[in-house]
């Protein structure tokens, strides 16, 4: 009997935890389909007539559409360049640079310690002087700090997990280092590398401060979303909820991949 009560209690507790984790998001999704009069009620409404007006409003709004487009361009360009430059560098660090490789890796990691304001404030003046303030190119350039360093940081362990024997055998057969990298290490490490790229994508997709300071008209979606607290007189909660849903969707698509990345990192031993 006592056991029954305690299992029921733990089940209830676990259910509550799942509600705490997901409830706020589901509530926002519901809010995105509500008309304002269904949101501004003293008693929260679970049953209401759903409407697509909020999504129509944000998708018709040119500022939000531009923000979405800028986000897609800036994020894909910076992640792509980060991958092209970062992945070969990570392979060299993992395989060919034993003596000073650690110092380079520490430098790369230390870039993550840099407070973003310390990057944003000097760059705003430099960009104004160079005439690249408020351009997508400027945003891509600062995001490269994040993407290259994150790709290297996550790809080094991925290459270290590639079995030595395969690379050595390929080298014995007369493959040069570039060929070993391209034909053997890269395909073998590809699943983990893909996870690393997804993680990098999520980081830059979510970024606000640099985009807020270094762009005005050409800002990305988080900046636009952060600025729609007042369209008109009332706080447009339905529209805000719909914009939040739009912002949340791309990272959530990759949740399965993040789980896989976690599993492989834990299996290979903690950093």
């Amino acid at each position, binding site marked *: 009997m006592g056991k029954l009560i305690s299992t029921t209690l733990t089940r209830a507790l676990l259910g509550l935890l799942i509600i705490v*984790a997901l409830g706020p998001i589901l509530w926002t999704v519901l809010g995105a389909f509500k008309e304002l009069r269904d949101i501004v009620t003293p008693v929260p409404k679970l049953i209401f007539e759903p409407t697509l007006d909020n999504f129509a409003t944000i998708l018709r709004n040119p500022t939000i559409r531009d923000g979405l487009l800028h986000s897609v361009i800036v994020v894909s360009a910076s992640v792509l360049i980060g991958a092209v430059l970062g992945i070969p560098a990570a392979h060299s660090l993992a395989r060919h640079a034993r003596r000073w490789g650690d110092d380079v890796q520490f430098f790369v990691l230390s870039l993550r310690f840099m407070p973003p304001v310390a990057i944003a404030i000097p*760059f705003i003046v430099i960009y104004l002087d160079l005439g690249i303030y408020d351009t997508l190119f400027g945003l891509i350039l600062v995001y490269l700090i994040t993407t290259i360093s994150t790709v290297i940081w996550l790809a080094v362990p991925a290459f270290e997990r590639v079995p030595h024997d395969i690379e050595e055998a390929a080298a014995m057969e007369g493959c040069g280092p570039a060929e070993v990298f391209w034909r053997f290490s890269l395909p073998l490490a590809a699943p983990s590398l893909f996870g690393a790229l997804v993680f990098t994508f999520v980081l830059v997709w979510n970024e606000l401060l640099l985009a807020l300071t270094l762009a005005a008209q050409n800002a990305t979606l988080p900046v636009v979303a952060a600025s729609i607290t007042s369209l008109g007189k009332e706080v447009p909660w339905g529209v805000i909820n719909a914009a939040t849903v739009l912002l949340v969707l791309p990272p959530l698509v990759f949740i399965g991949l993040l789980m896989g990345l976690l599993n492989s990192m834990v299996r290979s031993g903690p950093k």
Partner: protein
Amino acid sequence: MTRKRFVILSLVPAIGLLATLALVSIAGAVWFALMNRTLRSPDYEFVGAYNFLRLLRDHRFFNALEISAIWELVTVTGTLVVAVLLAVLIFETVKKPLWRNLICFAFLVPVLLPRVAAAFIWRFLYSPSLGAINYLLSLVGIGPVEFLADPSLALVSVAIVDIWQWGLFFTVILLKLMETLPRDPVEAAKLDNARTWEIHAYITLPMLKGPLISLALVKAVESLRSFDLIFVMTGGGPGTATETLDLYAYQMGINMGGRISYASAMSILLLIVTTVAFTIIWKAGKKWAN
């Protein structure tokens, strides 16, 4: 292609670009900190340590320093305490892999949300007039509570959102790590009639000391990037109750008249403090973990 050429060709572009960008921003910040440059006028001159001396007499700067320190302390300890408690709870009570995976998926969702989105979600929940939390509180006769407008509650209310995102994420990591631990010491302790909490407090958690230190460091670095969350939720207010250093530097450098030089001086101090602090913690953590 020789090995040496491959190494140079692969490393130089990536590391060179990173080093250039990092150097430009640090050198730029030092240079502007010694001038009296603003965004309003293109003219500026050398003023030496003037900006740094003014910082030492700026009450708002010290307030921001204090808020940043409290923020670091609350979010790092809160995240780790939540993660350890929940990981142990799930490890002990949920044995079926399917259920464990479902819980892990649910717990990974919050950390994937953009900070801006998380901020809006919780501003909506915290709202005194239409928020779901205040509705639940009113059912038990409390409220309405002004979570974000009350200076004594605002910082904690924002910290809860941060812990919601990161505490649940770290729970998943800890749970996965606990699953990889060897079973023998735990079985031996069970034969000695050790209680469940004793097994975790004296056996499993000490075995995870290294990863726990790494996680604390990762969170400490991550907590420095609190700008997005605080900016959208409170904007540093009410008053300056949630104004961390990065918010104050942003307000000074961009919002209020663009005093670039003053904000640069602040970001240099921030850079020095974090670099020194993290190098010390990094080294101490490595020593302690061994």
